[in-house]
């Protein structure tokens, strides 16, 4: 296992949701192009941050990678094997190695199951442990995520949001996965609790050599956790770079505007900052703009931008961006 081994590679991933009309005879009248041609890879042991505004397709990307949605086109290569071509037993075997932590800890735990059953169920499904051994493993996992091992007979409603998110993390760890998609795991939590979960995710990564796809809209959190960061806008990746490159020398005008819009908790810094205020809203993914889909809001757009889609090219050392102007 080399350090630079690529664990997951996504090639030309597209996820279109059909829009239909008619009650009895349904005709397809269009498609929501939630994810429209993504190319990226994740190395073993690293954290790739995926940022963007709501509706840009970042959660859809996470789900399409795990085959919770079957992608419209493209490949998802996990250790070189295409998950999109797998089905049934083979896919189920692969799913043991990839797990997900969901955004809303109130909706993602079954209220009628005890914590022990919630965490133990994946072990049973994958025939990893049962009976007493399972119970012991559940208690061990509860300890690992910082909960009291004797909580395993309680129900989710007895826990606070932060504790529930820890249960969600324990469930993801139950099958000893290699890759975890964290879909906004902290945005439903209170500020003082967020840091607890961030620290937990970092500790677990070090302990179990996990690879994360960390999906979030909070640029400060993504900067804290990620090794490399991908920025999405309207179903496309506009820039990928290492964390330091992206935050120090952003290239794409969209990420420049995003970074300038993040408030910094320091009044003296805030007073000196130059804000790039983007005009307007994100266009609809049903009918995305022609050419570069950011040109309707871009402060430096030229006529070419509305005509031709910019290529996604390497503008430095492993610093990819899709823009005509950089």
């Amino acid at each position, binding site marked *: 296992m080399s350090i630079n081994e690529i664990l997951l590679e996504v090639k030309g991933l597209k996820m279109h949701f059909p829009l239909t009309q008619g009650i009895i005879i349904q005709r397809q009248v269009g498609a929501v192009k939630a994810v429209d041609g993504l190319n990226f890879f994740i190395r073993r042991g690293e954290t790739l941050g995926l940022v963007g505004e709501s509706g840009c397709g970042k959660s859809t990307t996470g789900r399409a990678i795990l085959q919770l949605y079957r992608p419209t086109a493209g490949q998802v290569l996990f250790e070189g094997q295409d998950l999109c071509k797998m089905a049934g037993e083979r896919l189920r075997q692969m799913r043991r190695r990839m797990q997900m932590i969901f955004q809303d800890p109130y909706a993602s735990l079954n209220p009628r199951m005890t914590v022990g059953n919630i965490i133990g169920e994946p072990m049973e499904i994958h025939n990893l442990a049962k009976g007493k051994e399972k119970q012991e493993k559940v208690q061990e996992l509860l300890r690992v995520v910082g909960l009291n091992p004797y909580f395993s007979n309680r129900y989710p409603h007895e826990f606070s949001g932060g504790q529930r998110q820890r249960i969600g993390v324990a469930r993801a760890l139950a099958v000893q996965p290699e890759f975890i998609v964290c879909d906004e795991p902290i945005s439903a939590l209170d500020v*003082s609790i*967020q840091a607890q979960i961030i620290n937990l995710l*970092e500790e677990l990564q070090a302990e179990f050599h996990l690879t994360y796809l960390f999906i979030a809209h909070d640029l*400060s959190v993504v900067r*804290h956790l990620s090794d490399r960061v991908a920025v999405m806008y309207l179903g496309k990746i506009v820039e990928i770079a290492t964390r330091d490159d992206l935050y120090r020398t952003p290239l794409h005008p969209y990420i420049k505007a*995003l970074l300038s*819009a993040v408030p910094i908790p320091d009044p003296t810094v805030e007073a000196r900052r130059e804000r790039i205020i983007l005009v307007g809203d994100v266009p609809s993914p049903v009918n995305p703009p022609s050419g570069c889909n950011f040109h309707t809001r871009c402060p430096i757009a030229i006529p070419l931008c509305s005509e031709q889609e910019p290529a996604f090219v390497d503008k430095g050392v492993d610093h990819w961006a899709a823009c005509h102007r950089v």
Partner: protein
Amino acid sequence: MRDNTLLEVRNLKTYFYTMDGTVLAVDGVDFVMREGQTVGLVGESGCGKSVTALSIMRLITPPGKIVGGQVIFDGEDLLKVDDEEIRRVRGNKIAMVFQDPMTSLNPVLTINRQVSEALELHLGMNKDESRKRSIELLEIVGIPEAAKRIDDYPHQFSGGMRQRVMIAMALSCNPQLLIADEPTTALDVTIQAQIIELVKRLKKELGMAVIWITHDMGVVAGMCERVIVMYAGHIAESARVSDIYADPRHPYTLGLLGSIPRLDAARKSKLTPIEGLPPDLINAPPGCPFAPRCAWVIDICHQECPRLRGVGPGHETACWANVKEGRA
């Protein structure tokens, strides 16, 4: 005497009488606001910041009840005036913008009907006048083609645009005080930046005071003059914005600042979270509500709740310990 005092909240207490017991949502809150001032009210969910705002407007409904205190606005105690009078204040002198622009507009009424309502009620305008004024208001808050869009319904607007409509409604009667309850929490960062710029501009042009309720210490830094940090129904610390970040004197404020990663700071290997959970407001133990999570805790903290005390010009903290050089 402070002749330009606009709002004075004294020992405000709002409790909720639920099946499980009495929730002390706001338990003795004191603060003063001057005309034209922007005050940030910061805290986590359940700390009582929204209830404080709703109590000022007297919008608390059962099982909630304002059980004590005074809300002196423009020399008059709003908790004592009759219903007729408070209706003249609401939406007129004090206006409010709510967190969720998706649910706080009526989906079956046109934007015109909703913006015009306050103009007709409070300013006695007729239909034509109010329509004309509504279009002006939508233009002020930056809605393109306002004259065309005024007859649209809320679902035809995006989240950011709806929040602009809410702000237009709030501004319709030139309020002296605007209470914004997490107005940007449901919005994306780029849209949040647009709304913050808008409120800053309007404040400068119209000279109104603003209470900006948020959980985001970053937003506060950019737009407020004073900051009030709340925890478990109490004010933990209150100071000028420059002091709260440079010289926080309450362990909770310190914890809040230490637990958020900053976009501009050198990347630390670990964040310093506040351990534990916010307290249960039903069976609040005696003493300081933050004591179980506090790193500076001393014996007296568990016995007696600290009162706000001055630690500098315009800087108050409710803490027994002497927090000084603890910056994380």
